[in-house]
């Protein structure tokens, strides 16, 4: 194999999404601007206007329309992309469920942002988490390179698993941060990502009288379809993700190894669990604690859906599982709730922090991990 001409550059997270989408050669793009997502669709519309990307770019009047357009396009066999954030995702919510239960393999970037009121454009994860019960595959990137790689992988994952996929990137923290990115050559991307099969999940064509979505004669038909989509297809998706990541590594030269990333976990006594961009800061805190002979490790959740059940069940071998959530529900954080439900032995401490865009840095991680290990926290802790 000849050496690939990789382009080393620096991009914002949003531009990384746009470049990856461009290289995936979608047929249809539709999105509505919302801070901090806007520069994704601005860049994509620029690519289309300049003729660098041969896609149909649809300027829609709302996020609901944006999701509806890419849904229709995907059902008609197109590779389709949209992007949103926060209130935009909430506004398209109905259509996101319809897309998942139609097995429409659309790809969406979700630039995670706080849900109001009051108005707040900063990072929080509650928005992307509303997709968690719908059947969507949900990934969260740690840095801009991973944003790029996940976006490209998302098309192949979605089209193979026949489920929609959301790529989460933290608002501003990743969307507007410029970081080094290696861009593979187009021919390698083409090899990794062949054109989409237009006849899966159905062939929607004039003259082919196939109907999807009329009332069921037996509600059990509907029930089986739901189970097959939101439960069984999710389980299958895990294998798809592993396979796609392996192929990506083989062709593009970089891979991530599945639903979670383990960081210094093999000899750790206690373990930190987190998701998204702040994992970088958490890892630095882990390093700093280890320098003081505190054997702590980290598990970064890369995919929340499919839920990494096997990986999470391994957390039972640790004494304390310290779960960080950048989201809040009446029962604590989503990761905290789900990880607690999956474990039987370990003591789970759920730290809710960084919501509403409150900054949480290496020092904050260092101190809260230390306190959690010392036993200062019980159950749920709000570290604001």
């Amino acid at each position, binding site marked *: 194999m000849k050496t690939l001409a990789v382009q080393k550059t620096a991009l914002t997270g949003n531009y990384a999404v746009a470049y990856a989408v461009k290289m995936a050669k979608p047929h249809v793009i539709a999105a509505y601007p919302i801070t901090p997502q806007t520069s994704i669709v601005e860049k994509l519309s620029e690519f289309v206007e300049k003729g660098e990307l041969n896609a149909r770019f649809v300027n829609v009047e709302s996020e609901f329309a944006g999701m509806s357009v890419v849904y229709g396009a995907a059902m008609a066999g197109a590779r389709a992309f949209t992007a949103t954030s926060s209130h935009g995702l909430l506004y398209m919510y109905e259509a996101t469920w319809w897309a998942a239960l139609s097995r429409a393999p659309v790809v969406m970037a979700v630039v995670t942002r706080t849900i109001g009121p009051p108005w707040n454009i900063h990072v929080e994860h509650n928005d992307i988490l509303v997709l968690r019960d719908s059947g969507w595959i949900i990934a969260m990137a740690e840095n801009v390179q991973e944003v790029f790689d996940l976006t490209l992988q998302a098309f192949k994952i979605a089209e193979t698993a*026949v489920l929609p996929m959301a790529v989460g990137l933290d608002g501003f923290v990743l969307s507007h941060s410029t970081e080094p990115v290696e861009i593979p050559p187009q021919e390698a991307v083409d090899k990794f990502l062949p054109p989409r099969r237009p006849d899966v999940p*159905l062939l929607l064509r004039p003259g082919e009288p*196939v109907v999807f979505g009329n009332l069921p004669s037996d509600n059990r*038909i*509907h029930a089986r379809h739901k189970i097959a989509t939101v439960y069984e297809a999710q389980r299958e998706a895990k294998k798809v993700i592993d396979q796609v990541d392996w192929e990506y590594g083989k062709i593009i030269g970089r891979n991530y190894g599945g639903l979670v990333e383990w960081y210094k976990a093999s000899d750790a006594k206690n373990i930190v669990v987190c998701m998204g961009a702040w994992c970088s800061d958490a890892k630095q805190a882990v390093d700093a604690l280890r320098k003081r002979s505190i054997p702590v490790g980290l598990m970064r959740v890369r995919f929340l859906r499919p839920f990494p059940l096997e990986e999470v069940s391994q957390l039972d071998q640790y004494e304390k599982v310290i779960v960080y959530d950048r989201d809040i529900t009446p029962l604590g954080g989503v990761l905290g709730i789900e990880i607690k439900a999956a474990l039987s032995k370990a003591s789970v401490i759920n730290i809710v922090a960084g919501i509403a865009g409150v900054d949480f840095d290496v020092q904050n991680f260092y101190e809260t991990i230390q306190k959690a290990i010392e036993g200062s926290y019980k159950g749920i802790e709000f570290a604001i």
Partner: protein
Amino acid sequence: MLPLSKPAPASAGITGTWRTYKPVVNLSKCIDCGLCWLYCPESVIDWEKGTKVRIDYDFCKGCGICADVCPVKAIDMVPEAGV
């Protein structure tokens, strides 16, 4: 993968059982204009010019539009037996 539907008669069952009145064509009066075929909301009237009309009573819901639009009043709405 998706539960899909294909066109088929009786997607709501044998809808002829819904009927209270039954359209009966007096073929001697029929002028073969095709209006009953055109306006029948159910597609239960078959017609080719020259063959006059035939009604599929398995599915005719008995709405009476055919009788109403017939320009020569060649269709009578007759109560179903037992109604």
